[in-house]
Structures are given as C-alpha cells and as structure tokens.
C-alpha cells in the first residue's frame, strides 16, 4: 500500500539518505570534524580580485566548496522611476545557482552593506552589487559579505572599513566555526527532543578596525551566556578572515604601483 501511495510523487527529487548520509559532527575515530578540521578551525580561504575585466570591482571567494562571485558596477545615474535621493542608493542582487536565496538573507546583506559604505559620498547615484553563489557548501552568507567587501575595496568605493563575515554553529555542546552544509543539516534546530540543550546558527559581519558589528543574524535556541561567548569567538574568527583579506588588499596596492598606466585610466 505504501508503494501505491508513492508512485505518484516524483522520487527523483528527494535527497537520498544513502547518497547523503547524515554523519555525526565529530568523527569518533579521529576526534576531528568529518573534513579533518578542529572545531575552532575555519576552512582555507581562497580570495581573488579582478576576476572580470571591465567591471568596476569584482571578487571571487572560495571556502571549501562554497564559491561566491561578486561583481560591482557603478555608481551610475539613478533610473528615472526611482525617487531623488540625497544619499547614494544600493541595489543588491543575490543569486544562487539552481536555487533561490531567501528574501531575509538578501535584506540582511543589503542592510549590512548600507552600513559599511559611505553613501553620502555619491548622492543621486546608484551602486549595483551582484552576488552569485555558485555553490553553497555552507556559510554562504558570510562568504557573500567577505566577497562584497573585497570587491568594494577593489572598486575604490569609499568605505568605513573593510568588511568580513563568518559563521558559527552551536550544537548544544561546542562551537563549530565555518560549518559546512552537511554539518548545518545534522543540527536539526526544529527538533524539540534533540533541541533540549539548545543549538544555533549565527552569522556575523564585522568591521575589524572599528570593532563594529554590521550584520547579525541568529536562529536556534541559546542561553544568553552561551550567546555572549559565541559573539566573542566570532569576533576572533572575523579577525582571522580579516588577515586573509588584508593580504589580498595589500596585493591590490602592489598591482597598482606596478602598472601606472592602469592607474591613470
């Protein structure tokens, strides 16, 4: 009877447990995470700028299997249908290849960028920021803002500070930094029986030299004290990400000195 019921639904669209087994967060043999990291380690970050010729600014970031491209164009004149504005405007588009990004994440990224960019420097203009998540292997939102921060640096848009982001997963016992998608799926926040001890997913955007938080999103269930220490851990992580961004930004400066012709353009 069970079979009879099931032939109507398209089976191919459901994810198979055999192909994607839900492994525990910590591998009991090695006492490390499934990808061989410590709980407090982030994945190696690959960051590159200038990936698209002709764009004002562009950046590509890779965190494990998470791959994000950011392209910036503008600032350009406001379209006729948009009302006059004394500060600059932002248009942020986030695309996920083969999926849809929740409206909530887009708003969070946009509000975070609005807090980072000196919008009063370009009145009556609009800056367009296109983010494409080529693959979401977990922590895509923090990858997005780090990429956007890097691309803004390359574009030379006036900023309050460089922008970095990181993500933390809490399973009731430990903090897992920069979680992969598999790890996020293992911690099922909706299950009440498993969720007695709490659990949560926090994304934080940070301006390192001003020590300001410009993006903060949390879901799950955490006590206030645990949350406090999670914020401290995330701040430290963001400084680690910042060291990578800083290296890449220094690289940008060297490139400009090498090629004075490009500078005058």
């Amino acid at each position, binding site marked *: 009877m069970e079979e009879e019921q099931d032939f109507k639904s398209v089976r191919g669209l459901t994810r198979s447990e055999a192909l994607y087994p839900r492994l525990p967060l910590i591998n009991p043999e090695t006492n490390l995470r499934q990808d061989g990291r410590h709980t407090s380690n982030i994945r190696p970050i690959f960051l590159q700028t200038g990936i698209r010729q002709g764009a004002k600014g562009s950046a590509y970031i890779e965190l494990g299997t998470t791959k994000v491209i950011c392209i910036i164009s503008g600032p350009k004149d406001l379209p006729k249908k948009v009302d006059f504005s004394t500060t600059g405007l932002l248009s942020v588009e986030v695309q996920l290849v083969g999926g849809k990004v929740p409206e909530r994440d887009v708003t969070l990224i946009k509000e975070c960028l609005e807090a980072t960019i000196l919008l009063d420097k370009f009145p009556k203009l609009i800056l367009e920021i296109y983010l494409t998540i080529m693959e979401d292997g977990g922590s895509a939102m923090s990858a997005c803002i780090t990429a956007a921060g890097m691309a803004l640096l390359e574009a030379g848009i006036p900023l309050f500070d460089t922008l970095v982001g990181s993500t933390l997963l809490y399973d009731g016992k430990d903090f897992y930094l920069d979680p992969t998608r598999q790890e996020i799926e293992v911690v099922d926040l909706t299950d009440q029986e498993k969720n007695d001890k709490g659990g949560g997913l926090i994304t934080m955007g940070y301006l390192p030299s001003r020590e300001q938080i410009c993006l903060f999103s949390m879901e799950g269930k955490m006590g*206030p004290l645990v949350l406090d220490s999670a914020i401290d851990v995330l701040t430290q992580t963001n400084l680690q990400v910042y060291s990578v961004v800083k290296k890449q930004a220094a690289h940008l400066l060297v490139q400009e000195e090498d090629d004075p012709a490009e500078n005058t353009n």
Partner: protein
Amino acid sequence: MAEILLSEVEKYYLVMGQDVRVDGRSRSDYRQGDIDLNAVTNSHGSIRARLGETDVIVATKVDLGTPDPDRPDRGTIKFLVDCSPTASPDFEGRGGDELAEKICRILSIAYDKSGTIDLKNLCITPKKYCYVIDVDILVLQCGGNLIDVISMAVKLCLGICELPRVTGLRYDLGQGVPVFSTDEFEFDYLDVKNSPVVVTLPRVGRYFVVDASLEEESCSKGKLAFGVTPDGCVTSIDKLGRGCYQVKSIQAATAMASTVGANVNNTINMRIDSLRELKLRADPKPLSMPMDI
C-alpha cells in the same frame, strides 16, 4: 512610520537617554495594554491586543493539510501579516508589504527554527495528514513597537487556538482519512508554553529601550529583534535597519532582552491560562482583561 513632528528639545530629551522617558516609564517598562478574547467569531481562536496606541487582531484557522515532504511527521504553522493602510500612512502602496514580509519572516524563524513548539503534535498521520494552522494578523493601528505586540498576540492566540479532536480514521479504498469530532467542545490546545515572544530593542541615543513609542522609534537608527523563551533563552536575533553596533552593546542588549523577554513571556503564559479558564464560562459578553506586563 508616520510623519512625526518633534521639537529640538524633545529630540534632545529622547536621545539623552534619561531613565525617565517622555511618558514617565523607565527604560525597561512596557505601556498599559489589554486583551480581547474572540474578537473574530468564525475562527478557531482570536485575540485583539492593544498596547499603548498599537492595536492588532490575530485570528487562527485550523485546516487539514499534507505535511512537508522534508518533514513528514510534523504539521505547519503559517503566518500572514496584513498592514492595512488605515494603520499608518506609511503602509500605503508597497510600504506595508515590506514590513509585513519582515514580520512574517521574524515570526516564522522564531516559531519554526527554534524547536520551542513541538510541531509533531500537529501531525495526524505521518506523510499524509497534518493540521495546518493559518495565523492571520491584521494591524489596525501602529503606535510603535509593532513587532512585539504582534508576537505577544500570536502567542496568546496559538495558546487559545482550538484544534478539533480526531476521533479515528475512516478507511476509504484502503486509505485512512481522519474523522473529526462533531462536538464543538471536544478540542485540544496546542502547547505553547515554551514558544518565544519577540523583544525589539531600538537604540535611542546611547541606550536600548523596551517598548518604544513612535516618537522614540523615529529617533533611533536601528533595532535589534530578539525572540525570547520563558527561561530566558534567545531563539532568534535580527538586525533591522542600517546601523552598526559594538560587540559590547550587542551583548548588553542580549542580556536586557533575555531578562525582559522572560518576564513578558511568563506573564503571557499566565494570561493564556486565565483566558482558557474564562472561555469555559458560558458568558456571551465579549471577554477582555488587562495585559499588565
């Protein structure tokens, strides 16, 4: 929000952040409010909540549906917010929709992702039938602190929502179809003891204030919305509006939201119990009680 005219002196007083606010409250005090029971008669439970000038109606409707294939053993709760243009001139056109979307988002994360409400109780037969609770929220008047009032009203409303009891399964061509009791007094309540209420903390000047009025909201750059359970755990944090916060001030806001939210949530739980008792009395008059937080 609506256009608010404030003199320089008033603005200065608001931003200076005295512990005595314009209406005499301290920073962590709520305004007076009251609750009406069953404001909408043809629903499975409805609440009209007022706090200060803010006025909302929340109504629940219970339906039979099929569970989400990813979560075959759970029912669903859906939220729909309607910010009517009569509530505030800002809700005309697209303005209301954006705010409504934002509130829906906060509520569904607070209820869906935290595991504080056991959605398994809403399942009738796994994979086939479950209760679907539609929560409709109508904003009648927006007088500041809208999100908190809505979340309180939603919790109250889910607490008094009557789920028709399933008496058995009728087998039709080998498929079990649930049969509901015909007695209107046979129903179950949903356990919402642990579900969160939202505490929004706008930063006015150098401090975070609880239950801000429209005037205070107009003087703040950004807000933090916390979902808080009765034991003081935080279930969601959203940053609304542009504006940055220092690490320390976010931590201070978390501590404040946790104590204030636990207090409010326990009061709401008490109100749910007394509303359930009130309903048992056969009294045709509209039932109402003070909120008293």
